[in-house]
């Protein structure tokens, strides 16, 4: 019974924790413009994150060490540093976007300028990361993030022609008033949003925090293979709802407030209140995960004590990085840069950094010295290699498409 509860809780938190500010904004933007014609990009991204999250979770469960810890040891300090720099740049940008996202979500109920909210949010995030237990951070915000299921309810309430939606999703036809280059740009953005590097760092370091052993591999797989695809379904529900309400009015999504309009149209004030709860929980939970990911990776690379399972005094370097990263995020947001713009940049640049993040994971998960009988099998290797190919294409195309389309215009 306890095992069933653990699996169910893990799946629910994986669903609620899957969506962050990047998924919210990108899926709403794409939904309003392209409907579900880019659903395939989300599906490919979700399968990709499942493949690599399973590998990194297995590495943590079998070796008892986090992925970054092993990358440096297995591939040497130079490759480790390249991996650290590329993924940390993106994770830091994502951390900033998430803190900005919490501020934007709170602004919708407080009506206070986001710049006044940002420092308060940052302090609360830092205090939670310093004081709260790892399981509380993971479970509370993951479960509250399930409030975003309201997007699925809204789609049902709007009563769409499901056949037409399915045809749009399966046919993947580009709308006639959109160009191929913007279609490709948003495909890369959706892929980047689904495969953000911090997710695997957080997942594998979290496994070490929770003392996973080889006996936990089954539970971990259930979390990944059921929770993440259901989280991806939430992303598709966001896209479908914006397509149904904002698409016919030719509204392009530039603010978080617009993302909630389909909910208000379908479910009224109560639905909107639930959606805002979901926005706050999803962005706050992701802010905690990205903040921890920054500190995990840097501390692991330099061989310092890290984690929430030891007292802050024993992991002083880890907590110092957490504090500095939070300060840096606040400083960036206080320049009045639009958090939505940071979000858009972070998902596209995330696509650029993906090869440097995921290739070392494939190498470590294949190494029998670390993994023994749990090293990658043929299926995991085939999927890993195929997805590295897809990742390489997305990474190569991301910057040229960003410039060519002027960020999707």
């Amino acid at each position, binding site marked *: 019974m306890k095992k069933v509860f653990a699996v169910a809780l893990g799946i629910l938190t994986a669903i609620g924790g899957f969506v962050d500010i990047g998924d919210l904004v990108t899926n709403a933007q794409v939904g309003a413009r392209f409907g579900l014609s880019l659903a395939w990009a989300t599906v490919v991204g979700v399968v990709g994150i499942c493949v690599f999250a399973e590998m990194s979770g297995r590495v943590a469960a079998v070796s008892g060490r986090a992925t970054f810890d092993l990358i440096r040891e297995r591939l040497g300090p130079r490759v480790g540093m390249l991996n650290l720099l590329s993924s940390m740049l993106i994770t830091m940008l994502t951390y900033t976007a998430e803190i900005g996202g919490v501020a934007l979500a709170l*602004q*919708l*109920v*407080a*009506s206070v300028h986001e710049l006044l909210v940002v420092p308060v949010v940052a302090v609360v995030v830092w205090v939670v990361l310093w004081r709260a237990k790892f399981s509380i951070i993971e479970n509370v915000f993951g479960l509250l993030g399930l409030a975003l299921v309201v997007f699925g309810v809204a789609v049902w309430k709007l009563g769409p022609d499901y056949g037409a939606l399915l045809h749009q999703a399966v046919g993947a036809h580009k709308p006639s008033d959109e160009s191929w280059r913007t279609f490709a740009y948003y495909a890369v953005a959706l892929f980047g949003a689904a495969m953000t590097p911090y997710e695997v760092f957080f997942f594998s370091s979290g496994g070490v925090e929770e003392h996973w052993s080889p006996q936990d591999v089954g539970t971990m797989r259930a979390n990944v293979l059921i929770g993440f695809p259901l989280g991806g379904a939430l992303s598709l529900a966001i896209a479908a709802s914006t397509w149904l*309400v*904002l698409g016919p*009015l*030719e*509204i*392009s999504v*530039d*603010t978080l*407030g*617009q993302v*909630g*309009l389909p909910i*208000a*149209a379908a479910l*009224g*004030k109560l639905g*909107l*209140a639930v959606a*805002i709860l979901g926005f706050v929980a999803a962005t706050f939970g992701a802010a905690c995960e990205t903040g921890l990911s920054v500190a995990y990776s840097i501390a692991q690379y330099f061989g310092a004590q890290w984690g929430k399972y030891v007292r802050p005094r024993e992991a002083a370097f880890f907590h110092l990085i957490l504090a500095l990263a939070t300060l840096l995020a606040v400083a960036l947001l206080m320049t009045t840069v639009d958090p939505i713009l940071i979000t858009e940049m972070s998902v596209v640049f995330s696509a650029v950094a993906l090869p440097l993040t995921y290739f070392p994971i494939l190498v470590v998960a294949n190494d029998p010295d670390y993994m023994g009988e749990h090293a990658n099998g043929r299926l995991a290797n085939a999927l890993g290699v195929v997805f590295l190919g897809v990742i390489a294409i997305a990474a190569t195309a991301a910057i040229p498409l960003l410039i060519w389309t002027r960020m999707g*215009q």
Partner: protein
Amino acid sequence: MVCAAWLGLVTACAPQAPDHSSWRDQAHLSLEDVGSNVSTMSLVLQLVQDGRMFGKYQQIVALNSETNAGRTTDHFSGEQPEPQDDATYRRVTTVMSDAGDLLADVRIALVRRDSSQYPRLAQELAHMTHRLTRAEAAVRR
């Protein structure tokens, strides 16, 4: 290095001067963007009239729409048109400026909860959407 810095400084002071085709693309995108904000405000007003939104949320969405439309108008007004585009420039900037004024009127009414103004403003927003669509079509030609 000095030359590059000097060039950067000089070009930063001068208005953007795109060619005819790029300027028309800019005009089209700017009209689309302002149109999107007008449609957002229209939807907000409709949801408020139906009792489907609460006060703070509607204020923030309205304010964001007004700010975004104003930013787009300011940016486009700073683009230097070629002489052959002068008439289009006047037409486009006039309609975008009128849209900005209307969005401000709607925001004021929403913040004051002045529901007696909502039906008139909804009609004006629908008319503005029509004007922006016509201006878009004219720029495309």
